């Protein structure tokens, strides 16, 4: 299958995602330059991490008005699978494909380390190869991953099962102690109501080969492949 990877000026995880798609999974990766409006018939889009447009104004604020982002929004409206990683998640929030926004980490520092995540929803096209309650180890690398949203939105996404992954202890305990950035309810990743758009701050592409210290992220990409092939 064909994975589309938009590349904005300042994206820096596009090749890492491409590596996993091509070298680890053996599928095709198509890079989509930010000024393009044509998604070239891709089966899914992965918006990579980095610092699109230098994160000027707000992380993801400039990228949301790129031609390629407009095309991604249309693709998502038609039901296409879109996953945003780190800055990609921030872009999806700014573009309104996912609810909420990001604040600077409560520590005010850039945090780059492995964290544990508990899978909260194993029914999405991105996580169906995991088990609900399973704990995985995937690294984060961000300065603005402190997820927030209005109380009524939080209630809605919690009730709809849109919280897909939460920061947890290695045993799966959810508490402030295991919340690296201050995110509401330890939220690390959410999906839209329809379930075809998913964003997360951790980097599954950096945990997809044993040499990187974890392979726990690989099943996210494999889940997408199975969902697309099955459909």
């Amino acid at each position, binding site marked *: 299958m064909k994975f589309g990877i938009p590349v904005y000026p300042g994206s820096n995880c596009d090749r890492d995602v491409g590596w996993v798609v091509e070298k680890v999974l053996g599928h095709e990766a198509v890079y989509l330059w930010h000024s393009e409006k044509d998604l070239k018939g891709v089966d899914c889009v992965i918006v990579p991490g980095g610092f699109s447009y230098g994160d000027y104004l707000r992380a993801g604020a400039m990228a*949301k008005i790129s031609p390629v982002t407009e095309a991604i929004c249309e693709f998502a409206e038609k039901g296409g699978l879109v996953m945003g990683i780190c800055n990609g998640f921030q872009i999806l929030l700014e573009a309104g494909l996912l609810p909420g926004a990001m604040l*600077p980490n409560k520590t*005010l520092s850039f945090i780059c380390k492995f964290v544990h995540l508990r899978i909260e929803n194993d029914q999405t096209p991105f996580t169906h190869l995991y088990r609900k309650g399973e704990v995985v180890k995937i690294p984060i690398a961000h300065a603005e991953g402190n997820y*927030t949203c209005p109380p009524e939105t939080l209630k809605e996404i919690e009730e709809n099962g849109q919280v897909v992954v939460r920061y947890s202890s290695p045993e799966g305990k959810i508490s402030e102690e295991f919340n690296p950035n201050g995110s509401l309810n330890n939220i690390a990743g959410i999906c839209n109501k329809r379930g075809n758009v998913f964003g997360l701050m951790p980097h599954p592409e950096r945990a997809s080969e044993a040499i990187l210290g974890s392979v726990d992220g690989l099943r996210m990409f494999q889940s997408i492949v199975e969902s697309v092939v099955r459909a």
Partner: protein
Amino acid sequence: MATYFVKVFITYRKGVLDPQGVAVEKAAHQLGFTKVKNVRVGKYITMEIEAETPDEVKREVEEMAKKFLVNPVIEEYTYEIKEVE
């Protein structure tokens, strides 16, 4: 056509935790400015806009704020307009 100088002030909304504001407040207290409270850190953007009337400038600024300058989930803003002599 006149030129207008616009100042836009953006801060986090009330009730949204501002980690930078909290850090600056703590530092102020540490330096002995103990009466300081509710510190908020925001953005200050200036620009010039060519327009026929101040109303036209207003519309332009508010449209820009809505489209990308401000994220209404977490931020609020005010602005000032002054005609350039």
